[in-house]
């Protein structure tokens, strides 16, 4: 993907993140995810109905990479079944760890395809995925 386009997608998702709001609704499962090495700290809320993710929201403070990555993840995961979501998270994890991955399935999340080159940013991009894993891995 073109570098300028990647930058535009990241900044757009940072400035106007998808579903960034606090949730006070018991029908959502909640997980906190934070970077021990830096200051990102997010709460992720997931609503699941009949094995399908019907909504995800998030709230907290995080950098441009974490925030945009969360927004893009949310756009990609809503509507997926649990096993599809697990597969998606797995592919993303492969990408940020510089392992072979199926780029077709990641959609806009490929904007982080080169993030492995900035070691201190890998955790930022992966932050929401660490959060969602806490929820869906236990289902």
């Amino acid at each position, binding site marked *: 993907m073109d570098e300028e386009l990647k930058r535009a997608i990241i900044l757009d998702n940072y400035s106007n993140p998808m579903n960034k709001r606090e949730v006070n609704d018991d029908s959502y499962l909640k997980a906190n995810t934070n970077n021990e090495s830096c200051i990102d700290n997010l709460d992720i809320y997931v609503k699941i109905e009949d094995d399908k993710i019907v909504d995800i929201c998030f709230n907290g403070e995080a950098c*441009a990479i974490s925030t945009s990555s969360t927004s893009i993840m949310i756009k990609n995961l809503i509507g997926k079944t649990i096993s599809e979501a697990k597969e998606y998270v797995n592919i993303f994890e492969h990408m940020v760890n510089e392992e072979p991955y199926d780029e077709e399935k990641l959609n806009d999340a490929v904007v982080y395809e080169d993030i492995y080159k900035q070691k201190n940013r890998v955790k930022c991009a992966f932050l929401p995925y660490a959060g969602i894993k806490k929820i869906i891995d236990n289902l």
Partner: protein
Amino acid sequence: MNRNDFPMLNQDIIYFDNGATTFKPKVVIDSMVDYYSKHSANAHRGDYHISMIVDDKYENTRELVKNFINANSTKEIIFTSGTTDGINMVANGFFKYILNPGDEIILSKADHASNILPWQALANELNLVIKYVDLDDHNYVTVDNIKKVLSPRTKVISLAIITNVIGDLRPIKELCDIAHQNNIYVVGDAAQSVGHRKTDVQALDIDFLAFSGHKMYGPTGVGVLYGKEELLERLRPTSLGGGMNETFDDQNNISLKSLPSRLEAGTPNIAGVIGLGEAIKYLNKIDLNKISEYEHNLREYLIDRLIKIDYIDIINIEGDAATVAFNVDGIFAQDVAVYLDKYNICVRAGNHCTKLLKDVINVRNTVRVSLAFYNTTEEIDTFVDLLSDRDKIIREML
């Protein structure tokens, strides 16, 4: 000032994170290399030549520290692993045995975790009460606000001499006067002050003072706990072992050495102590008063330039230490730090271990610049110029 003394400054780097740790002058590094390559023996153990050299150097640092902070005796100088270690020793070796349920400890929310968590843990253990002094409009601790939280149950006031984000110099002398009139002990965290301005424990009349070597141009892993001799005599070792015992038998009868050895169990950080001694000699040569004045002028220069940028919000326009915390409107602190790093400028983003300060300033994370005497106005110009174009920051922060 004295930039050529610092090997780290030979590279293309602007280092504005001196509150986290300072660079070490070559004399400090050399003294430690010398120890490891020329007389690498244990201290206080051998009867052979190189061991005696080590003993001399180790104890000579104690003398240097004593004079550096104007303590009354070398018995009052205990080598620790750093400020954190010192405060924990005071909390768990002294106050643990004299405080009772309901006794009160006064702290400030602007202080570092190392001067809060040991007290919180002790409070949980002994059912003590922690009271946080209100900060004034500049987030300073004032004598009046301390008076407001004093009560007949107050037993300890523990404060940083200078804080690591706000950078205010606390009125320790006045606080000690008031405290001692009311039989209250005062503990000082001097981590951020001792390398930047003169410390005189006798003039302050402070009871305990802890600091680290690595924030005063010395090595990491070494620090000092000062305590008035009569108080250190009552401080129970939180660590027991070699070097600090006189005799012991199989009936658990233990007899300990006298101060200061009694509180230095195990083989100490000998290289670190020797390096710390060199750092003190180095600072004495430059003169801490000159350092304070130079750093103060640097801070003024930085504030004068930063304040002209309308999208920059400075948390501490006022401040006694050369520490400035700020945010760029609409840009997360860490992203600003990452942007500056692309130009080899080292600043800290985050809560700077003052996790309670957000309750007061309503800002969780900031970018922090903490200056040292080897920083220059030219470096500040480069830094401020890079912050003078908000679009550029957004363009390049990813």
